């Protein structure tokens, strides 16, 4: 038995020794890519401290393609960073916030872009591979990414294991290592304006499903309440923003008014400013949108200017 155990240990030793260094190396290379689109850049900025800011913008893609931190920064004379997460609800946004404040000072002001999907539960985890380089021994990230459609329970504990099976990730790393990764950033301070024109996304969505009824998940709402509490404790300000939404898209979710009202009530109960821009005149004009819920670059600049002027009144 002793001989057997020694042979097994000798065989496993190089693997065990190499697991962590290989993990570090793979993660380092993978972080250098600008994928999901640009999400890895934001994660890197959070962990290396370059995302430190006075005003943090949270939200989904409605935040990162619509709120230009440069315009806000110029107007408010403070550093602004956009942490909007592509395709994610508030559960993930809150996890990103927690990671941010773990590695950076709490921002003075948080602008939270809320939308009809913010508090709705999602079936899977969108672009789970963006978390690969950061989830090892990260309990906070693991708590929302270990999932039937996400990571396995063992992934955050044992180095390298989570990369197993992600052949495309390994191939991407190999390509980057061979060809050298482009140094050009996809987002600037978390934002990227989209030079796109109105597409038929909305038509396609309604052809698939004429309308949608969304349910508020109490667990996600609790996370929102946690953020409010944290802001109070840290002495930071919080503003809810409902970004412009094309008039067509406003009819898609049947209980939209009820959801917005939930945000309004939470804001009122906690003394939070709620800025609703879904009734701006640009919401009737497709030339400012590339689909029913996302402004293009021109639209986002107009909206960001309007937002900056409104935030001037509340930003201390």
């Amino acid at each position, binding site marked *: 038995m002793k001989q*057997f155990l020694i*042979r097994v240990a000798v065989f496993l030793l190089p693997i065990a020794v190499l697991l962590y260094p290989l993990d570090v190396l793979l993660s380092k290379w993978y972080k250098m890519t600008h994928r999901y689109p640009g999400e890895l850049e934001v994660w890197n900025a959070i962990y290396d401290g370059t995302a430190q800011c006075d005003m943090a913008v949270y939200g989904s893609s409605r935040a990162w393609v619509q709120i230009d931190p440069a315009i806000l920064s110029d107007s408010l004379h403070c550093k602004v960073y956009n942490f909007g997460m592509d395709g994610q609800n508030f559960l993930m946004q809150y996890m990103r916030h927690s990671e941010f404040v773990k590695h950076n000072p709490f921002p003075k002001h948080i602008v939270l872009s809320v939308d009809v999907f913010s508090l709705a539960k999602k079936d899977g985890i969108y672009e789970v591979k963006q978390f690969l380089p950061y989830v090892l021994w990260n309990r906070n990230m693991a708590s929302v990414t270990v999932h039937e459609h996400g990571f396995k329970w063992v992934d955050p504990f044992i180095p390298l294991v989570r990369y197993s099976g992600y*052949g495309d990730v390994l191939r991407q790393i190999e390509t980057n290592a061979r060809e050298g990764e482009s140094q050009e950033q996809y987002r600037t301070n978390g934002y990227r304006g989209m030079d796109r024109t109105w597409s038929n996304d909305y038509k396609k969505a309604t052809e698939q499903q004429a309308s949608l009824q969304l349910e508020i998940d109490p667990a996600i709402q609790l996370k929102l309440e946690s953020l409010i509490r944290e802001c109070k404790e840290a002495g930071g300000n919080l503003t809810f923003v409902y970004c412009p939404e094309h008039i067509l898209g406003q009819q898609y979710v049947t209980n939209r008014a009820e959801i917005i009202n939930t945000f309004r009530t939470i804001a009122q109960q906690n003394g939070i400013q709620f800025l609703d821009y879904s009734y701006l005149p640009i919401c009737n004009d497709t030339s400012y949108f590339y689909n029913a819920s996302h402004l293009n670059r021109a639209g986002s600049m107009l909206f960001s200017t309007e937002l900056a002027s409104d935030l001037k009144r509340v930003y201390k």
Partner: protein
Amino acid sequence: MLFNTIQFGLFLSLVFGLYWFVVNKNLQRQNILLLVASYIFYACWDWRFLFLLIFSTLLDFYTGLQMQNQTDERKRKMWFWISISVNLGFLGVFKYYDFFVTSFASWLAACGVEWDPWTLQLILPVGISFYTFHGLSYVIDIYNRKIEAERNFIEYAVFVSFFPLLVAGPIERATHLLPQIKRSRWFDAALAVNGLKQILWGLFKKVVIADACAHVANHAFAHAADADSLTLAFGAVMFAFQIYGDFSGYSDMALGTAKLFGIRLLKNFAFPYLSRDIAEFWRRWHISLSSWFRDYVYFPLGGSRLGKWLSVRNTFVIFLLSGFWHGANWTFVFWGFINACFFLPLLLRGRNRQNLEVVASDRIMPSFNEIVQIIATFAMVTLAWIFFRASSMTEAFIFIERMITSGTFMRPELFSWTLILLIGILMCIEYIGRKSEFGFDGLLAHLPRPLRYASYYAIVVLVFFYAGKEQQFIYFQF
């Protein structure tokens, strides 16, 4: 809990540790541990069906004892038929009832009679076909006075439920496994190391070969109606390697795992794709099932002793039963039938036992003639696999029709040189190791230590690279 998961790795390490370090001094405790571990393993699939497994075990244990103790032949026969009926009854209810009533309703509909049958729509308990056949062989052997009934329930229960073979075989015999369970077991380092190598080889076959081929095969069968000939032909070949990698990989992992506990299970595969004719293929593919049907169906029917035509009848019976054993679908029955048809010319010419030794057993390379025979046998087997894989007879015929008629010389969809290379490596290793218990073992015997270790690590890296997209083992559904 699949064999190719970390959960199973942890489970196996825990049971191994307890088995050799905590209860190693006492055989009874070792067997109790194996039984508890086996029931936990089974409960991880679906704990509700654990009661069915325990009931089936108790039934065969009790009827076995009753047959042993009875001097009255009529009562012996009664206990025998009780056991057979209940065992087959379970299979009938869980696996075949819906198939029979819906087939009957279709037949009535064809005759102009409308009948909406009441179906059970039960989930098939994992491994039911395997553990039922364990029990049946035990009861039949007692009835035929080949063995004596086991009087220790724990030992009998371990024979039925030993976790490496519980969900997909090999289908063990009481004559082979029970004596090993009853015998004191001491740790054999060489056997354990060999077991680990076999597990590693099984992982390669399952994770690297089968799961990668599954991607291509699934695509071909999903697009049977609109894909071109070469895509479908390539898909069919990939399915042949998928099912081989999947099932023989599982069997290697099962045999390797059992070796860690000092137990040798029946060999289930012996390089079937190196077979030179279909009869040889069936002596090398799913050996434990083929030999089960041979011993408990073919021989009792008279085998080949009662003349050529009865021998043909018996051959068709076991092939059709073998097909039906796999699942309640006409595709499986037809798969059995088509294999019987392939077997028939050999049987009629008395050449079904001409290739008993592995190819080129006394040479390095096979002859040109043998290579042609191997390719022809593989083509026949692959054609039959189309019926095995298709979800209906219509789908299978459409697949074959389009494979023949939609000819283009375009590169098949999802064609991958990497996959071809991996299959090439598999077949080369299998060929080099064809005289050994499993291919990898044979290869290792030819390599110096540094290359041996390099091979292990190469497999670990490949398994790491391809793992993750865990696909169920095909045979778990049977």
